[in-house]
């Protein structure tokens, strides 16, 4: 039986913007707290550098990208690195669904911004479970 695949989480790397911070907080929650055994975080910087190991992991596993703005750097870099974007999320879309959770602050998010990160992480958790299930069925 082959090794179960991991779901790769690639968040926005934009510094200086609240929505980028929300993206990273959600990614940390998923990969460190909620689904550590099923996921792996790959920082965008490694893909920009063309890191061979990161590219190899991406080639073998589905990725969920969490973009902080419409430039969608995370999604673009995963595709340019030869990976498959299995699910694509944008913090702005999540905020549109939860207008009362406007993130503010950068190094330290405001309270509602932190809540938005939790909500976003829960969305990602669900996607991880779906992808793992799909992987199991296709194995």
């Amino acid at each position, binding site marked *: 039986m082959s090794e179960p695949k991991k779901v790769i989480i690639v968040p926005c790397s934009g510094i200086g*913007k*609240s*929505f980028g911070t929300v993206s990273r907080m959600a990614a940390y929650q998923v990969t460190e707290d909620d689904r550590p055994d099923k996921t792996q975080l790959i920082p965008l910087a490694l893909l920009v550098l063309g890191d061979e190991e990161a590219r190899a992991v991406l080639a073998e596993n589905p990725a969920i990208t969490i973009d902080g*703005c*419409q430039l969608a750097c995370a999604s673009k870099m995963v595709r340019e690195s030869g990976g498959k974007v299995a699910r694509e999320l944008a913090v*702005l879309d999540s905020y549109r669904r939860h*207008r009362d959770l406007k993130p503010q602050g950068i190094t330290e998010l405001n309270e509602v911004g932190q809540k938005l990160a939790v909500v976003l992480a829960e969305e990602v958790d669900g996607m991880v479970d779906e992808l793992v299930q799909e992987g199991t069925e296709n194995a």
Partner: protein
Amino acid sequence: MADYLETKVDKFTFKVATDRHYNSLGVWALAVGKHIRIGLSDFLQQSSGDVAFADVNPAGTVLAVGDAATEIETVKVTIAILSPLAGQIVKVNPLMENAPETINQDAYGEGWLCEIEPSAWESDLKNLLDADAYFVQMKRQAEEEVNKNE
């Protein structure tokens, strides 16, 4: 299809559609049949940031020049979009409800805000900038923004 004046300031490229008029804040006005369609200039949408919500006043709202026609919330700011003309809103772009990011994606086309039945278009038009004049003003504003951030 509109032609554009275009300039690059720092790493940003800004376009000004030549087929319409502008107020000094970067809100454009374009005659479409008997109505006037309004929207944001490329410079205004880029400098405001990714649009999260666009709350356009409903059809039937009567506006004077300078009244808020729409409130836009972006990732950076919440701004009132002030009407460049007087009249009554007769149609709201349905995309503003569920896809306000269209403002960022196509500011001069599908990203329009609303259509207004003008009450004094001939006189309001005299107070607006044509594309050439707005282009000069916009370029100066963009350069000032860049210099401020350097």
